[in-house]
């Protein structure tokens, strides 16, 4: 656990000093909202459409972060250093997933208000707690699957290509649940609590993939 915390602290400090990933993700998300505004030809959107736009935007922005997650390790020998250290390899999975989770949270801190400002018709205030819960569960799933996919893709020749290619289909069930859970929250006469069925599916998906990642991650580090 201490190892994981150390690696996480390293990643966050690296991000804080270079500001490479999160600002790019946030900018990308805002630009995507602009594209959606023109693409859909709508001034405001609500309900399921709004949920879909938000989910798709967050997914694509997340892909940027996923692609960059292990790049420093690969280019500057972090993998070798980590393998040389007498520590549990799962620590790297936990640290990287946590780092990605933090990045995604920061992204949403910018992107969700921007979405409310630019596109969303109904007020964001009342359903906000429910939306935060849904997005937190979605982030967890994206963080775990993203870490796994990124660890696979970083050693391939076409890593920027393989990452999204693998990640998108694996994330479809989680995103489908996120969009369906967020839909009623963003409707014009919104409910304030998200549908329990979708929360349960998201949670189940997160748990299964967390266990799966824990089981297979060691094999991705062997050398």
């Amino acid at each position: 656990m201490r190892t994981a915390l150390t690696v996480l602290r390293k990643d966050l400090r690296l991000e804080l000093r270079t500001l490479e990933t999160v600002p790019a993700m946030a900018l990308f998300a805002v630009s995507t909202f602009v594209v959606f505004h023109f693409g859909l030809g709508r001034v405001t959107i609500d309900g399921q459409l709004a949920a879909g736009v938000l989910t798709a935007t967050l997914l694509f922005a997340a892909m940027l972060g996923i692609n960059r997650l292990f790049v420093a390790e690969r280019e500057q020998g972090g993998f070798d250093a980590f393998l040389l250290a007498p520590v549990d390899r799962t620590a790297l999975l936990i640290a990287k997933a946590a780092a990605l989770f933090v990045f995604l949270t920061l992204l949403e801190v910018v992107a969700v208000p921007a979405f409310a400002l630019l596109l969303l018709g109904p007020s964001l205030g009342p359903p906000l707690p429910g939306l935060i819960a849904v997005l937190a569960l979605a982030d967890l799933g994206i963080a775990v699957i993203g870490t796994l996919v990124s660890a696979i893709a970083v050693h391939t020749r076409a890593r920027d290509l393989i990452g999204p290619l693998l990640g998108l289909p694996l994330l479809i069930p989680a995103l489908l649940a996120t969009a369906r859970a967020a839909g009623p929250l963003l409707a014009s006469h919104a409910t304030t609590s998200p549908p329990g069925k979708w929360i349960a599916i998201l949670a189940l998906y997160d748990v299964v993939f967390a266990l799966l990642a824990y089981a297979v991650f060691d094999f991705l580090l062997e050398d």
Partner: protein
Amino acid sequence: MTIYGKGLRGLSLATIATLSVAFSLVFFYAPLDADQGFVQKIFYLHVPLAIVSLCGFVFGAALAVGYLRTGDRRWDMRSYVAIHMALIFGIGGLITGSIWAKASWGHWWVWSEPTLVSFLIVLLLFATYQPLRFSIEDPERQARYASVFSVIAGAFVPLNFLAVRLAQEYVHPRVLTLGGGNLPGPMRLTFLISLAGIGLLYVTMWKYEMTAKNARMQLRALRRALLGDDAVRPAGRSAAPS
């Protein structure tokens, strides 16, 4: 060395016989569907193809676990061939499904049918198996990463079906459940024999490709022994250990 060709002739004959019986039953024995008429008969090809393809993906995942446990690259090759064949069967299933959908519902693609949608997602995921595999140069790492992918993707199959099934707000009438639960007797018999035939076809194809890969592998080993390492070019895009 293992000779995979053993039993291949018997297996091929059994496959041909079962498929012949199945298709005879489809055309001459199974009754015409009251609503859909003749076009419903594609069901005896489409559903077995899809089921066998999904089982093939899970089979590939199980074989990949074998590789991760033992580190023997022949397990990885088996898993590769299983997934490769399942992909071909899956594409067949998707195309026949589309034809059936067009004929009976009037559209090539129907979003309200959860099985169809989940199947597409699974196929999209497994379609990335080969690009992933062959963009890794080191053969050991290639085998390991491909196995990890197969395990993840194999576990993804049931989860995905669950999520997509639940996403349908109104439940589509399940005319054809997997067990053939509410099929009339003659239809069910025909369906089960078709399923067995397609299953056998999958096994035969899998064994054929394994035999070919093994023969090539042994040939390369022999050439290397006779002519020296330089005379044998590296295998390129191949899952076979050389």
